C-alpha cells in the first residue's frame, strides 16, 4: 500500500500524470468514495482496501475529456470494462495511465450486516496488505468477527480471475476468491416452471424503485442519452403505476448491454434494494456462450461482439433450450 502511494506521488510530482483517479477515505473505514487527486499532498486521503469496490472505468469516460493524463487504478475485473469502453470509443486510451492493482475480493457492507452485525463503527482486516481472512468489526453493541469470504460481494465468488486485461504497470498482490460457478443461479432459475420463474422475478423486481443506479454505474451503459430518458418514446424513466415498466426496464437494459456486458457486477453491488440484476446479464452471457461460442466481453479489443455478428447456420429461435 505504501509503495502504491509512493508510486502515485512520483507520477504526480514528475508531471507524467495530471491526476490520479482512485478512492478517498470516507468518514468510516467502510465507505471510501471514488475521487480525483490532483497533487501529492491530497494523497494523504487516499485509500485502497476491500471496500473500494467501485469500477473506476466508468469515471474514465468523463476523465477522458479532462486535460492531460489520468492515472487510474483498475482492479482485474475493471480492466475488462475499460477494454470494452476503448472498443466503443468511449474512453481514450492515451489519456489513461492504467495502474493494474491487485484484488483480494471486495466486501459488501450488506453481506456483513446480513450476518447479524448491527451498528458498525469500524472494520479492521480489509487492508489490501493483510491476509484478508477475517474482519474485526467494532459495533455499538460490542466487537464481532466475521469471515472475509462470507462478507464478499457476490461477484467476487465467481471472479473472472486476477489477471489484468490492459495495464501500464501492475502493483499489489492479489488473492484468488473464485469458489462458485457464475451460471449456477441462472441454471436453477432456468429449470423452474414458467410460473415459478415469473413469481421469482416479480418478487425481486417489485422492489425496484427506478433509481437508475444500476444504469448510471454500468460501464456498458455509456450512451449520452438513454432510451429511458427520452420523453418522445413513451418509455418510462421513473416508476409507473403498473409494475410492468420495471420488468421492461430491466429486460431492455440487459438486452442493450448483451454482448458488451463484462459481468463486472456493479449493477448488483449498487442496487439499494439488493435485486440480483446480474442474473439478467448472466442469462444473456450464458446463452451467447452456448449458442454462439464462448465469449467474454472486454477480453480482447479486436473481437466482434456476438450481436453484431452472425453465421449462416446460426440456430433458429425455436431450437433454443
Amino acid at each position: 500500500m505504501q509503495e502504491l502511494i509512493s508510486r502515485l506521488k512520483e507520477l504526480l510530482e514528475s508531471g507524467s500524470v495530471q491526476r490520479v483517479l482512485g478512492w478517498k477515505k470516507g468518514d468510516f473505514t467502510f465507505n471510501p468514495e471514488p475521487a480525483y487527486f490532483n497533487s501529492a499532498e491530497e494523497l494523504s486521503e487516499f485509500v485502497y482496501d476491500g471496500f473500494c469496490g467501485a469500477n473506476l472505468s466508468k469515471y474514465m469516460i468523463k476523465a477522458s475529456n479532462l486535460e492531460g493524463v489520468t492515472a487510474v487504478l483498475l482492479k482485474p475485473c475493471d480492466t475488462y470494462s475499460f477494454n470494452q469502453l476503448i472498443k466503443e470509443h468511449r474512453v481514450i486510451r492515451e489519456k489513461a495511465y492504467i495502474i493494474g492493482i491487485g484484488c483480494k475480493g471486495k466486501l459488501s457492507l450488506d453481506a456483513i450486516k446480513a450476518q447479524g452485525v448491527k451498528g458498525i463503527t469500524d472494520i479492521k482486516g480489509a487492508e489490501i496488505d493483510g491476509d484478508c481472512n477475517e474482519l474485526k468489526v467494532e459495533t455499538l453493541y460490542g466487537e464481532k468477527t466475521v469471515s472475509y469470504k462470507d462478507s464478499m460481494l457476490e461477484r467476487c465468488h465467481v471472479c473472472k480471475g486476477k489477471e489484468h486485461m490492459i495495464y501500464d504497470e501492475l502493483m499489489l498482490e492479489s488473492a484468488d476468491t473464485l469458489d462458485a460457478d457464475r451460471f449456477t443461479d441462472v441454471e436453477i432459475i432456468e429449470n423452474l416452471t414458467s410460473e415459478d420463474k415469473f413469481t421469482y422475478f416479480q418478487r425481486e423486481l417489485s422492489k425496484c424503485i427506478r433509481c437508475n443506479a444500476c444504469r448510471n454505474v454500468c460501464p456498458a451503459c455509456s450512451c449520452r442519452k438513454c432510451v429511458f430518458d427520452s420523453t418522445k418514446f413513451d418509455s418510462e424513466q421513473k416508476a409507473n403505476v403498473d409494475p410492468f415498466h420495471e420488468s421492461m426496464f430491466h429486460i431492455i437494459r440487459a438486452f442493450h448491454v448483451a454482448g458488451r456486458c463484462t459481468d463486472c457486477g456493479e449493477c448488483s453491488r449498487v442496487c439499494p434494494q439488493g435485486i440480483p440484476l446480474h442474473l439478467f446479464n448472466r442469462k444473456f452471457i450464458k446463452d451467447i456462450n452456448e449458442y454462439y461460442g464462448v465469449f467474454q466481453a472486454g477480453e480482447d479489443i479486436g473481437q466482434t461482439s456476438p450481436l453484431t455478428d452472425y453465421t449462416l447456420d446460426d440456430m433458429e429461435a425455436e431450437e433454443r433450450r
Partner: protein
Amino acid sequence: MKKIKRENLKQLFDLISSGQRLYIPIKKAGQTNYGIYAADSRVDLDTLKTVKSSKEAFFPQSETLYTVTKENRKIKITQQELEGEDFVLFGVRGCDIKGAQVLDRVFLSSPVDSFYEARRNHGIIVALACSEPEESCFCTTFGVDPTEPEGDVTTWFKGEYLYWKANTEKGERLTALCSELLTDADEAAVEEEKESIKAILSRLPYADLSLESWHGDATNEKFGSELWKELYKPCLACGTCTFVCPTCQCYDLKDYDTGSGVQRYRCWDSCMYSDFTMMAHGNNRTSQMQRFRQRFMHKLVYFPANNDGMYSCVGCGRCVDKCPASTNIVKVIKAFSKEVNSK
C-alpha cells in the same frame, strides 16, 4: 400504558388488519419495506430502517391522479377518488415521523394537495422507539427523539413485551380496538428502555454532527462555495438518495395512454436526474454539480428559509447507507464545517 407479548403480535396484526389496511415493514426478497399486511407476510420490526421510508404511505412512489377520455371533441376528466378509509401505519421510527412533518409543510401548505391530505387524515401512525440505533443515524441533530417518537400511538420493545401508549384520540380508538390483546403495564420498563437508548445515542459516531453554519440565510455564503466542485464528483446522478429519503418530495407528472383513455399519474422524481429541470424552455441546472448542490442547498438552506428554520433532512441516514458512491449529506455537512474550522 399497555403492553403485549411479542409472541402475540401476529394476533394483534391480524386484528388490526381485519378492519383496515395495515402498512407494516415486511421482509420480501431479502429487503424490508413497508407493505400491506396479509396473514402470510413476514413482518420485520427488527430491521431499523426500511429501504424506502414510510413516506410512500402518504405520498406513493406513483399514483394515478385522473383519467381523461375523449369522445369526438368532448373531453371527460375523472379524478381519482381520494383515500376514504382509515389505515394503520405500524412501526414508524422517529425519523420517518419527522419526515412526514416535513412533507406536511410542503403538501399541506396552500395550495393543499388533496391526495396527500386525504391519506394523511386517514392514517393512524403507530410509532416505534429505536431500541438499537445504528452507525448512520444522526436524527438527534435534527431534533428527533428516537426514544419517544411522536405518533398516534408510541410503542417500545423491551424484553418480551411491546409497550404501547396512546397519544391522540385516533390512537385511543386503535387502543380500544385492540383492547382484548393489550394488558395494563407500568411505565418503569419504558423509562429504563429510554435511558438505555439515550446511552447508545451519545455514543453514535455522528452524535456531534453540527449544523451551525446551515440556516435559511446562508444562501449566498454556501451557494458560491468552491467545495461543491469537489463534493459532487463521485455522484453517479442516480436517484437512490432521493428515493430512500423520507423528506424528498419532488415529483413528476406524466401521461400514460392506455388505449382507452389517458391516465395522468404522479411519480417520485429526483433532482439528481440529468433531465429533471428540462422543461419547455430549457434547463435551469445543466451540470451535475448544480444538481448536486441543489439537493443539499434545498434541504439545509432553502427549506429552512421557507419553513421557520425546519430542515428538510431528518437524519435517518438512509442515504449514508445506500449511496452507491458513498457520498452523502453527512459528508457534505462535514466538508463545510471543516472549511469553517480551517479558516
